[in-house]
């Protein structure tokens, strides 16, 4: 899944996702991507988040909505993302998944669930501080 959060110059937030889903899925299966609050969520009064990974598991936790609510309560975006991953970890320790978060002041972060073969998550960031869209990486928790 491509998940994206855009915070405009005035702090307006938009988010989106696009995916072709799980490979060899049962026909009719839909994952988290098109579900608001699961695949992504945007609220210009708090921030935005987007998720990627095993949608069958992640959608049950509305991770993007949850991350935005953590940021609304003042959590740093990276912490908000980590708290969402931790929440899912309690129920499904070996799930494959990652979340990106950004708040209305332009702070951003990401988090992922560490499993064999997936210990780091790469994501892209663009901002006035970066000369061009830049690949960044976070260690999974």
């Amino acid at each position, binding site marked *: 899944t491509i998940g994206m959060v855009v915070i405009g110059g005035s702090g307006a937030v*938009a988010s989106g996702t696009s995916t072709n889903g799980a490979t060899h899925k049962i026909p009719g299966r839909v*994952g988290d991507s098109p579900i608001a609050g699961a695949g992504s969520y945007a609220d210009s009064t708090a921030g935005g988040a987007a998720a990627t990974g095993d949608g069958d598991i992640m959608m049950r936790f509305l991770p993007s909505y949850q991350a935005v609510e953590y940021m609304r309560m003042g959590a740093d975006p990276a912490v908000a993302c980590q708290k969402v991953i931790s929440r899912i970890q309690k129920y499904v320790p070996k799930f494959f998944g990652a979340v990106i978060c*950004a708040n209305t002041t332009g702070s951003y972060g990401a988090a992922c669930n560490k499993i064999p073969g997936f210990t780091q998550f790469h994501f892209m960031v663009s901002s006035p501080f970066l000369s061009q869209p830049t690949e960044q990486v976070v260690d999974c928790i």
Partner: protein
Amino acid sequence: ATALPVVISTWAFRGAAETAWRVLQLGGSELDAVEKGCGQCEIDQCDGSVGYGGSPDESGETTLDAMIMDGNTMEVGAVADLRHVKNAIGVARKVIEYTKHTLLVGESASLFAVRMGFPYEDLTTQKSLSMYLKWLNQSCQPNYWKNVVPDSSKSCGPYKRPEKVTPEEEQLISQRSVQNLQSHD
């Protein structure tokens, strides 16, 4: 980074990130940036997990899911299980602009897309077809079935509910299922 504007996106999909940033720099809205950025990934077929020609289902067909959300108005447009239309996030944007709904699914979503002017196309490519045929040739492994007969970890089916599955058998079957890291949203 605490300065605005900011664009953050999953994975190292550079084309998508550059497109979104360029749309913002050229005065486009945040929604425009999300639509064009994610839409670029549909064109690029980013790592095979976005866009046409990837992740075939059990009948070999590629279907698309997408959403777009406006944080100012809390409006959402989304499509799921979209068939025969490539620009899923473009259609999702049209759901916001031309309907009072939020989510349209399946072949009916495709008919809405055609009415909005999107072309009706085949989303299967040689690559997705060969993925599908390879999967058929390896007894349809891995798959998303459980607790069915015949044993879904050994054969293609068609599957049905067994009359009775003992808890021990269920435990054994679920332990055998192998996580496929390449298969995700």
